[in-house]
């Protein structure tokens, strides 16, 4: 066993015990004394964007939505239903797929060793038949249909497909009803054996347990299994222009309330992992200062009826793609987009107010502290940051080091007119 560090404490008092096992699996344990619950997350660095790859020299393009399809199929087992196996030990299990991650997790308050073993075992074993693959298509088709009725999802996916010309982040994570019907057992197996090797996965557990004991169980479980050498994986992503593909996209849906999202495509993709968190937190503070509920702009828009209280911002950043999204329900989408554009231009000239910057930073700090009370949040955030090579617990340190100058610089470079995209969903009856 290598690379063990113990007792590292961050500024807010959480200890992380980490270890990389011989088979390549990275394990991170966050014991929280006094907690009843344990939340464990077993994740692979494999998401919907990984639809083309070269494994051991062989290049493969797979149907859209396959990572998500595989996530569904992992719950299949010859002997006992996976759900039942967790139920037997009082835990609930679930999973999700994002653009760049597939994660399986359970939450439980007892029988921790059994549940950890079950989690590791069901994800590290695959049972596929042509029949059970076909059966899943009906279920996933209904999941996609459910999304089709969701205007918030539609307006968001439209935004990304307008922003990105060829990068698969523009494609819905679940794929389409057409693409999932092209998925077969063999391709699922190939994806599984490519991306579910322990060296491409991490296990993060947070909650009320003894770290030494839990690490022992994990090592024992892993030592009893053999995995081949890690495959060499080259992920193939298409060449993506820096500027957006389109400036506007409008869809019509049978909705009561129009939606409008205004986005900026990130041009500064981080080279180093440590830059990623810094850029993410800094951009968050810029956006909160500009568009948060304490901004004058928000009050004006609300007063004029251009937004409602669900108006919000979001920033997402990986080494592959990044974007800012601002918006929500908007009775007059065109007008809202124009106002945002003018306002951003003005703010770039005037600069962010120092009080607004400090307030946003203080708020981010307080919200981070409160978030640590939820072991599920800690495990989820720790996992997705770690898969991007970042330590979530550095949040306080990074927040403390941000400056107003940097924030203004970020505002200037990121929220530029040529990177801006507008996506709207309008009621079907509207012209």
């Amino acid at each position, binding site marked *: 066993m290598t690379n063990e560090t113990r007792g590292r404490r961050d500024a*807010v008092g959480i200890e992380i015990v980490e270890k990389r096992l011989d088979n390549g699996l990275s394990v991170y344990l966050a014991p929280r004394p*006094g*907690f*009843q*619950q344990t939340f464990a997350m077993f994740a692979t660095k494999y998401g919907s964007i990984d639809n083309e790859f070269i494994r051991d020299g062989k290049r493969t393009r797979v149907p859209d939505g396959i990572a998500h399809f595989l996530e569904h199929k992992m719950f299949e087992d010859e002997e006992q*239903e996976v*759900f*039942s196996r967790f*139920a*037997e*030990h*009082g*835990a*609930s299990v679930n999973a999700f797929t994002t653009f760049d991650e597939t994660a399986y997790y359970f*939450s439980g*308050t*007892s029988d921790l060793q059994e549940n950890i073993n079950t989690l590791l075992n069901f994800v590290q074993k695959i049972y596929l038949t042509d029949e059970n693959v076909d*059966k*899943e*298509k*009906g*279920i*996933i088709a*209904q*999941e996609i*249909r*459910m999304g*089709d*009725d969701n*205007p918030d999802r539609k307006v968001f996916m439209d935004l990304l497909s307008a922003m990105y010309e060829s990068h698969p982040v523009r494609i819905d994570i679940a794929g389409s009803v057409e693409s999932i019907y092209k998925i077969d057992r063999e391709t699922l197996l190939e994806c599984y054996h490519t991306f579910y090797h322990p060296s491409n996965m991490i296990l993060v557990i947070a909650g009320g347990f003894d770290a030494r004991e839990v690490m022992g169980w994990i090592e024992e479980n892993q030592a009893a299994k053999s995995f081949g050498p890690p495959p060499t994986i080259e992920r193939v992503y298409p060449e993506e222009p820096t500027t957006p593909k389109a400036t506007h996209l409008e869809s019509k849906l*049978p*909705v*009561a*309330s129009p939606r409008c999202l205004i986005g900026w495509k990130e041009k500064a993709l981080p080279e180093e992992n440590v830059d990623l968190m810094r850029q993410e937190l800094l951009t968050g503070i810029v956006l909160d200062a500009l568009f*948060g*509920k*304490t901004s004058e702009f*928000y*009050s004006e828009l*609300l*007063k004029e*009826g251009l937004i*409602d*209280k669900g108006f919000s911002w979001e920033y997402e950043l990986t080494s592959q793609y990044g974007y800012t999204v601002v918006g929500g*329900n908007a009775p007059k989408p065109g007008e809202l987009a124009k106002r945002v554009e003018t306002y951003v231009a003005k703010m770039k000239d005037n600069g962010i107010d120092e009080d607004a910057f400090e*307030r*946003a930073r*203080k*708020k*981010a*700090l*307080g*919200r981070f*502290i*409160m978030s*640590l*009370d*939820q*072991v599920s949040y800690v495990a989820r955030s720790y996992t997705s940051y770690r898969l991007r090579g970042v330590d979530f617990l550095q949040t306080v340190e990074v927040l403390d080091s941000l400056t107003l100058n940097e924030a203004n610089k970020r505002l200037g470079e990121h929220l530029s007119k040529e990177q801006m995209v507008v996506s709207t969903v309008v009621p*079907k009856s509207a012209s």
Partner: protein
Amino acid sequence: MSTFTTRSDGRIHVHILPHTRFRTKDLMIRLHTPLVRDTVTAMSLLPYMWMNGTKTHPSTRDLQIAADDLYGSVIRTSLGKRAGYHVFEAAASIPDVSRLTADDVVAQAADLVCQVLLDHAAGHGAFSDEAVAQEIDLHRRRIEAARDDKMGFALQRCMAEVAEDSPAALPRLGFIDELGDLTSDKLYRTYESVFQASEVHAYLVGPFENAHALAEKLIRELGRVFPSDSSRTAFRVEPLSREARAEFQTVTEHQDVAQAQLDMGYRTGVNFADENYPSLLMMNGVFGGFAHSKLFLNVREKHSLAYSVWSHHDGMTGALAVMTGIDPKNYDQARQIIDQQLSAIQAGDVSDEEINFTFRGLQNQYTVLLDQPAALANWHYNGVLSGKERDIEDMLKALQSVTKEDIVQAAQAVQPHTIYFLTGEGDAS
């Protein structure tokens, strides 16, 4: 750990649960008042109005700045509905920043919550003509936008049918066509009537340094506007009666949807306070509360008819609902399979394994509450509303002692009421 201590004065009650394990301090003030047809719309606007400003912080922005300055304390109001009652809440989640600052963040956040609830006057903040006009417009859009969440909309429509002719059938957000009649004067009078009508329950949950002193302060502050009235009886929730129907009524509505929503509503006559509540929870777990339940295994796993299929029991009204999203052409098959699962339980087809898994699942859900102090306040509040406070440990013991016969009996008491089907414009049925 889950035991609250309560300080009361008249109809004001402060429930305290101190703990030191977490970094969030929660202060919640809840008022409940009976839903009345004539005032439901005006009442439903109030919690949204409160965040529009107070005498001390006359705009939403001023309020938000004050909250963000308290290390991002979340100051919020919300509008809930429990059976035939509106539940208004003004609350704060406050980060424990005692290591970062000497300021009394808790006292300031508590003041802010009290101001949001109490510190209004006609013409100021929340009740200025301008703010009222803005909020009426937002509320109209809020009601309209609720239709865009198909699953939520269908469930609400189904539950309203199940609660027919009772106050529990009234919509939480009120009626869109009554918004035009509201004025700032009318709303302000409605606001004042809340002080006369409501029962008040405040919660202090978390690492408060002196929770009891804060409780006393809250009682004093609230006592100024919620006058003591010894003649009134407590507002308690009753479950919907079980008389009703021998068969389902079917309500079909059409919208332009890609997926149809099939919701089946039942009455059980059993709510949180009932001695059969644990049996009903176990029955619901076997039926459709979990991924090991009959509905999930049969509707989804065996027949691939749905991605999502659940049953849910409302601990206040005692209504039970099955919710699923399907292809409309599968209506008959889905309905038949759901019927079969309930009939199977009623006929005694319940395995030891199903009972054991369901108990373990519920045990997990309740034990997890101990890590979520704010959720414990909800649990306690269910007891307040229904008139029977339950301890989590006692609840777990009660669940463990539920037998197969109890589950079968609980299922036999379930009475069909309404099938609500939301489907595409061109679909028949």
